[in-house]
């Protein structure tokens, strides 16, 4: 028999929108909720509404594979993700909510000599940036995760892996609801089934939002709309270097524990963990073509399964129970865009692609600072929109193992 911690008896109440708020946050996903929470907690700004076109935390927050890690290559990335990881480490107490945060470690596998070089480079950079990281040889990989196939006879054998022991997983719904409950207790409103259809701008300054539930005035507007950011921003004439793509994931049935950690592989594109209840949670590849359908193509799932069985032959007779997709907004350098926008009082938080969940508390913290002070937080300053003009990209494409 299996018991997991129960949700609390009271969470939050969906509100009817007021006529106006100090701050309107577009999108009640993890980032929107965390931003609302830290606006109230760190900056005392509580006249805040978080608007959600569907149900609270029903977009990518409900659809991701919940991997948390901070072992990114570039200093800028390591800075924000490590900040987030440190917040994760105390978040259950902070929010007084069982988040099922489990620091079970993440392995990023290397399958070629160049993977090995890139991996060691990342491990060494992580250490100098204060991020825990180790390079493991295949035998050590097997010690951490006994079911990984380290035979050298397979098509792309495992040549080793990076390991971040402090990395892990958390339960996404719990995280969203923990932030929501805590923010609600501080006075934040959540308005569900309220799609933002336009941004109101006057003399270069944002004044509110048009929604399917009427116009809502706002002193400041913070975009946390993930895959739909382009659509919202376009209503204020703002073009963003984003492309929206479906990203799929899947779960198996509940299984007795076999997989103690998180394994990610770039070369054969797998990332998999076994959640607390026992289901295998796996991410698949991104669909190549732009789409706003929260659903991907099936051949991507089939490829994903083939890759998974190369690494984990014991998964052969596990079953796919459910597949789903989210819409991710991908930037040209696979790094986020966080900060000011060309419109005064309108703030951008987007471009997190496939990797936004792990940043949730960190970006909420920094973005709240940005909204409160009308200036970038030092940790997110490198992720300005301006970098695409200067060329100072934070290119996680070739560098970091996988961006999930």
């Amino acid at each position, binding site marked *: *028999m*299996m018991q997991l911690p129960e*949700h609390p*008896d*009271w*969470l*939050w109440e*969906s509100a009817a929108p007021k006529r106006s708020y100090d701050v309107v946050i577009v999108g009640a996903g993890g980032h929107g909720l965390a931003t609302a929470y830290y606006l109230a907690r760190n900056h005392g700004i509580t006249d805040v509404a978080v608007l959600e076109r569907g*149900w*609270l935390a*029903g977009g990518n927050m*409900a659809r991701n594979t919940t991997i948390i890690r901070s072992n990114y290559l570039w200093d800028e990335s390591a*800075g924000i993700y490590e900040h987030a990881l440190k917040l994760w480490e105390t978040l259950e107490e902070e929010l007084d909510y069982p988040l099922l945060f489990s620091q079970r470690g993440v392995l990023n596998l290397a399958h*070629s*000599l160049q993977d*090995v070089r*890139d991996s*060691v*480079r990342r*491990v*060494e*950079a992580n*250490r*100098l940036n*204060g*991020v825990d990281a180790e390079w493991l040889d295949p035998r050590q990989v097997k010690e951490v995760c006994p079911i990984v196939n380290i035979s050298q006879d*397979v*098509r*792309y054998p495992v040549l080793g892996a990076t390991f971040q022991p402090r990395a892990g997983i958390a339960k996404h719904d719990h995280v969203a609801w923990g932030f929501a409950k805590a923010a609600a207790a501080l006075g934040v409103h959540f308005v*569900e089934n309220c799609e933002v259809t336009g941004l109101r701008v006057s003399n270069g300054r944002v004044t509110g939002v048009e929604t399917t539930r009427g116009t809502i005035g706002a002193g400041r507007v913070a975009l946390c709309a993930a895959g739909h950011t382009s659509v919202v921003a376009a209503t204020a004439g703002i073009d963003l270097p984003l492309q929206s793509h479906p990203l799929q994931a899947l779960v*198996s*049935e*509940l*299984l*007795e524990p076999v997989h103690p950690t998180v394994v990610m592989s770039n070369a054969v594109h797998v990332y998999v963990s076994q959640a607390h209840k026992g289901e295998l949670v796996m991410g698949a590849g991104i669909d190549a073509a732009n789409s706003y359908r929260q659903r991907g193509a*099936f051949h991507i799932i*089939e490829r994903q*399964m*083939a*890759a*998974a*069985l*190369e690494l984990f032959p*014991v*998964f*052969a*007779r*596990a079953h*796919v*129970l*459910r597949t*789903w997709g989210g819409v991710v907004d991908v930037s040209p350098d696979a790094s986020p865009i966080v900060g000011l926008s060309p419109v005064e009082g309108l703030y951008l938080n987007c471009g997190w692609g496939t990797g936004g969940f792990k940043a949730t508390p960190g970006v909420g913290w920094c973005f709240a600072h940005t909204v409160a002070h009308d200036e970038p937080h030092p940790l997110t300053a490198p992720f300005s929109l301006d*970098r695409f*003009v200067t*060329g*100072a*990209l934070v*290119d996680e494409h*070739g*560098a970091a193992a996988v961006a999930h």
Partner: protein
Amino acid sequence: MRRESGGRVDRSRVLRFTFDGREYTGHPGDTLASALLANGVRRVAASVKLGRPRGVFSAGSEEPNALVQVETPFPEPMLTATTVELYDGLAARGLAGRGRLASEPDPARYDAVHAHCDVLVVGAGPAGLAAARAAAATGARVILADEQPEPGGGLLGTAETVDGTPGAEWAAATAAALEELPDVRVLRRTTVFGYYDDNYLVAVERRTNHLGAQAPAHVARERIWRIRARRVVLATGAHERPIAFAGNDLPGVMPAGAARTYLHRYGVLPGRRAVVFTANDSAYAAALDLADAGVDVAAIVDVRQAPGSCATRARERGIEVLTGHVVRQAHGDGQVDGVVAGTDGGDVLEERPIDADLLLVSGGWSPVVHLFSQSGGSLRYDEELGAMLPGRSRQAVEVAGAARGVFTLEACLADGAGAGERAVSGTGPAPVEPSPPAGVPYWLVPAADYSAHFVDLQRDVTVADVRRATGAGLRSVEHVKRYTTAGTAHDQGKTSGLLTTAVMAHLLGVPVADLGVTTFRAPYLPVSFAALAGRDRGELHDPVRVTALHEWHVANGALFENVGQWKRPWYYPRPGEDMEAAVLRECRAAREQVAAMDASTLGKIDVIGPDAGEFLDRLYTNLMSTLKVGAIRYGVMCRADGMVFDDGTVIRLAEDHFLVTTTTGNAAAVLDWMEEWLQTEWPSLRVYCTSVTEQWATVALVGPRSREVLARLAPGLPVGAAEFPFMTWREAEVAGLPARVCRISFSGELAYEINVTSWDGLRLWEAIMAEGVTPYGTETMHVLRAEKGYPIVGQDTDGTVTPHDLGMSWVVSKKKPDFVGKRSFGRADTARPDRKQLVGLLPEDPAFLLPEGTHLVAPETVGPGRRLPEPPVPMLGHVTSSYRSAALGRTFALALVKAGQSRYGERLYAPVGDTLVPVTVTSHVLYDPEGARRDG
């Protein structure tokens, strides 16, 4: 208990099986569930959270309760007893919600097939068979898929007849007749589980599971069907819904239709004394059939005050009908031994205990709209039926039969036939009117305590749990699903989903239609990972590319490196040599004697046409159009952002013919890049690009003695430095083979690259080896080029490096007005003087080998105490390549270092483990900087 006769099982054969360690018998035609019921096994599994006993609930794939683990012949987790066909030697056990994966490899094979058809019919019940027959009659290509081992669908579970023939026999005959047709395929044991864009559907066929240990090894156990259908007919039937009341999870509680199926299809009576609890007419048929079969039907408890003629008929048969009543509770120790009936609502509580070991329930029917919803079709809640019905479709799809609320047999046949006709021609009879069994939707028996009113049996979710969720403020079905986990189990809420919504609606006092249901997602039924992986595993996971010389490399002990899909010789250890010794020996041979490498994997692209020179000028950073016929030039390509994309040599074969070489890993990407620019930006350029990588075998012949070896092999070729200068090529006969010889060098030594057709590759190589030439692999190639400071794209670059950063400003034309990437060099960040630049590093300890990937820190960072500060530690760059050099007699490295080109002579520190290794920055060209050796 098994009846003496009846059903579609073959009583003449006995199958032995074990369940939870006890031996039982059954018959061909049984499922594990029917065999267990026949043996009187009521408790099959335990519930996941509360550990409550659970029995067989349904008779189909919607089963929420009877979860089993198959152990023999091979462990398979989480199957439903209702879908496991019985075979001799089956060993299974009940599960408490979690399965077990085998620790040994799965020996079975899996496969996938593609199919195209005019009409795909999903479901071989009466509507599906009628649809397939109508479509096939026109000569259309038809695929009929059904998850059961035999066609018939609902007909297998009733005593109904079609045209006077028993339903199951009619179905078998109809399917057989269809299979006679050349363009019809009937797929049995095949579940269509996904419906994607453009009428692409995916199904899994279970081919050998039912054979147990007798399954032939050469037949794929499961096979994925990828079906593209012009039109689809969904005849997927309906699921009978449970009702939430106290104790509704006990073994012995089952949908009325399931009991009827056990009777008619398997000849099994799932109990001796039954109570029927219903809100519609359909359960009366089950009651009467069971009564006919000898079950004591104690009472029919009907929610309705005035059920109509079916109640009259039941009473005529001597069955008591309690109208306006509900079952308040089922009770028993581990299984039902009685129920408490009572009036529905009202202030006066009348209670009536009834002994029974079987409680048949019908809260209504839910059409199976999963695939329709997956197809993008909208759903609408039908108040009368109390279920979601297909609404507007987005794809070319028809729905027929019970899947759209048509329930009588005649109507299903007509509806199916019409759908089949429309699917072919686009026109035909209109869909028939829905004909749900008379009744009312009924969900929840009111009570004071809802802690044993189960909504989702498999996830142990009760009405009390749903109430707690709505009490927490949740109003969306998606939130309640996540709060309670209802609908997330193995059955994905097939029988519980709408019930959960209805309970929510009841608790919140809102219409069911306002709440809707959670999204239907693929797969409709769980599908094994292995089936989806198919044959794309092991050697077939990704193609292996080998050169024409591969067999020689294998025979001569080469170890291989994967480079993209290619297998490249890494080094050739001699007995007793480790990698270091072998590479040092190979390097010495190349620097001091003569050595050869298989360079066939380098990408080769023929660029032909009058505008070929102009085209290459636009893509390469340097000028190519000025190249003379007979000459060779090194070139670099950048992406439009100015970052290095690929490099290689360009050979001019004729005025209008260039041969471009690329890095091994980038060959396809470079060709794609060229085609993209040609076709989409510069269609007016008269240029054609063709990959010729595999047409040529290429051998690099390297070393001071390479000239004399070549002279012997190519006696007709003048090989003197003046006659055959650097960066030119010649046609020649080498080892008696027609060859193109290029004088280029990726090692700094005198070297030739000899190209012959792939067919001749091995003969050329063997001729070279016969000259006593040392073979070398990629590792030695890497060392030799690094000594010369030649970067490897992808190793010394990472997509953030410009040609200037590589110290190759000389390869960037200042004459050309534009080329791809040029404009980006002027951006603020790209023009920064402190960009990371390629340099050489010499560890102060000449024996110390820096690990590749090591970072570098400035002396001011480590301070006089030579200690790293607290993180974050500022980094200057990292080691991209690092080797022991035979030629330099020491270790060295290449690195990308901030403002590196201005740091020559500076000391930096490389943190390696717990030590700080001092290194000196030098030019990246460490060996023969004057280039004196290339002419030999």
